């Protein structure tokens, strides 16, 4: 048993850290800025690092599981709010496993080089994670496929060229009793009949409700064999990004928290809770490393991946809570578009920590309440464990 990285992996990690420092967003930049994203994406493409989770023959960098883990952890740690685009983390693997040759030829290279932006349409109002309740429908009317319904909580819809959308399929070939089958379909975001409605989250970020009214789809819009949508959805949920390496996010939160604590006197109770959370972070890292180690050596998984998702969510929430408390009165300012335009940060640097801090303070507020559907995930884990 050895706790430390091999020399090769250490060198890899150093290279990755340098890359992220050089090309990731600077302290005063935000991921929401298109220019920042484009700079990052151009470098990723140049290095051949844009699709870490894809197989080599589709342009993946052929990293070992340990290297992937280090990449994810470094990105999570260094770049607050960074997320691998859904196109790469979720749509790509779906197309690689289930897409037709024509679909792969048409889309994969575009996705890999960021030439095309994608979003994922999954959640529907009042549906949660119960697939049976999905009602967004694709039907064939004799002339072509038409899409009707609504998706909510869609990220990046404002930039997207395409949507990968989970639908119920109503076609003449359906044979099961409900007449419904699930599938993912490819939707052109500029289609007539498709409308975007902005929804604002607690921290002022944007997500979208996307409505479809008789949206006409291309003939080869369906991904893979019809009726495996459930299976496909499960595949999308097994992507490692956003699960493995999330200790990096928590590590960044802890760093911010410790920075905050230095300015505070007489906070023994808070200090105690920070130590507690720090130990939980050590525990999360240990879980991640165990999981990665099993992937690396092709061993059976020591525990289901869901466990990592639950723990990471719980811990981000806990750190978020501690951070909000550590901000004291500076938890109050809410910088909206009007008052923060061209203005400097609210409050002295010492308490606000860094530029764009009140924005990140708001992000912590949101995190403290809801990082992930951890209650649903507990149900999921209960099923996996066959309780």
């Amino acid at each position, binding site marked *: 048993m050895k706790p430390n990285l091999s020399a090769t992996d250490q060198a890899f990690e150093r290279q990755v850290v340098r890359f992220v420092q050089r090309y990731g967003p600077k302290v005063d930049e935000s991921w929401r800025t298109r220019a920042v994203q484009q700079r990052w994406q151009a470098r990723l493409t140049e290095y051949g690092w844009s699709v870490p989770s894809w197989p080599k023959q589709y342009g993946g960098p052929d990293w070992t599981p340990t290297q992937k883990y280090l990449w994810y952890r470094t990105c999570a740690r260094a770049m607050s709010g960074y997320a691998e685009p859904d196109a790469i983390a979720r749509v790509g693997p779906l197309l690689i496993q289930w897409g037709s040759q024509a679909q792969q030829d048409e889309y994969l290279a575009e996705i890999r080089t960021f030439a095309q932006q994608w979003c994922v349409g999954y959640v529907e109002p009042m549906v949660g994670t119960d697939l049976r309740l999905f009602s967004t429908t694709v039907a064939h009317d004799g002339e072509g496929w038409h899409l009707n319904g609504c998706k909510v909580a869609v990220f990046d819809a404002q930039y997207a060229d395409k949507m990968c959308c989970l639908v119920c399929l109503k076609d003449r070939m359906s044979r099961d009793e409900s007449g419904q089958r699930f599938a993912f379909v490819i939707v052109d975001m500029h289609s007539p009949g498709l409308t975007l409605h902005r929804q604002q989250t607690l921290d002022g970020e944007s997500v979208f409700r996307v409505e479809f009214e008789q949206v006409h789809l291309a003939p080869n819009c369906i991904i893979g064999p019809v009726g495996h949508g459930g299976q496909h959805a499960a595949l999308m949920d097994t992507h490692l990004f956003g699960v493995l390496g999330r200790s990096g996010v928590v590590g960044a939160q802890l760093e911010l928290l410790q920075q905050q604590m230095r300015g505070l006197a007489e906070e023994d109770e808070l200090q105690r809770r920070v*130590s507690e959370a720090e130990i939980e972070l050590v525990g999360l890292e240990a*879980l991640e490393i165990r999981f990665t*180690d099993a992937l690396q050596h092709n061993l059976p998984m*020591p525990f289901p991946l869901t466990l990592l998702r639950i*723990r990471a969510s719980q811990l981000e929430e806990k750190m978020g809570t501690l951070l909000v408390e550590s901000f004291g009165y500076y938890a109050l300012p809410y910088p909206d578009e009007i008052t923060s335009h061209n203005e400097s940060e609210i409050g002295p640097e010492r308490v606000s920590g860094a530029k764009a801090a009140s924005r990140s303070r708001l992000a912590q507020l949101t995190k403290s309440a809801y990082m992930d559907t951890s209650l649903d995930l507990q149900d999921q884990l209960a099923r996996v464990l066959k309780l």
Partner: protein
Amino acid sequence: MDFSFTEEQTLLEDSVARYMQNDYSFDDRQKAVKSELGFSQDNWNTFAELGWLGVPFDEANGGFGGGAVECMVMLENFGKALVVEPYLATVVLAGGAINHGGSTEQKAKYLPGIIDGSKQAALAYVEPQGRFNLADLVTTAKAEGDGYVLNGYKAVVLNGPSADLLVVSARTSGEQRDQKGVSLFVVDASQTGVTRRDYPTVDGLRASEITFENVKVSADDVLGTPGEGLATIEQAIDEGIMAVGAEAVGCMEVLYKDTVEYCKVRQQFGQPIGKFQVLQHRMVDMFMEHEQSKSLMYMAAMRMDEGYGPQAQKAVSAFKVQVGKSGKFVGQNAVQLHGGMGMTDELNIGHYFKRLTIVDTLFGNVDFHLKRFGQL
């Protein structure tokens, strides 16, 4: 980064696991607990024959040359079977103190008897007023002639009733809580002036309150440099934490699995109680607590094997905090989910719960190690 065991470690684990499965039943354990000795001498002899009592000691002294990972592998399986034989007291604590603090001559004098099973030992380091502070000592050792005279009182000495050898901490200089001035002595338990009051502990082990009244100790039986004994105790205690922590991880695994099985069988309102979502979430939490403790155990064991120092100490404290919390959670919920039956002595559940509760207290509880973690 590598979590795999060496071939020797795997063999050791297989051997311990097989023994515990085939030859260490819960009923036999309960018989041993109720016997006069409190454990099975036959088992102890077998442990010696299998070489287990020599695992942490150098080959030069007849040991196996193992480290924290070997200890972990064994003790996790001890925990699953709730082993009552005094491995912790004799081998890990007293043996560890002699191993880390002793001279070549002292090791050669004492370790072979521990390794071959002929000598039982105990570490007498707790005092009633000291709680978890290892340096809080009012027991004194005064230099007299070419030796020392010991006076004082040691509390809750694990394996005290059976110990032939006592490793005793006492103050040779300084004030009550000074880091300096702590010395360690090897004392023959049958010596004049040593009196014991023996009793069982709630987790089925045995301990003693021991009084030292003008006990003469030769200068040859001081472990290491006089006044510099604290570091040795600290290391032995950290190894003790690894040992009981691994036991606790073993206990949690058994409790989780037994609870899941029970909830599948036990019917209420026309269905197995495991169908109830509230109980499922509890069991998911139990599973996660166990896995987290296990992961921190691996990290701490690997850090200890890299070399004993602040980084290892910090990892050990993190592990102890987790085990304290998780052990309590898993133990209490296992009892809760077994309902009233979990409260009785007939099921093994309650016995695991008791052991887990005691493990949290041993060598410093959650609060203590949280503070230590923050300060390291």
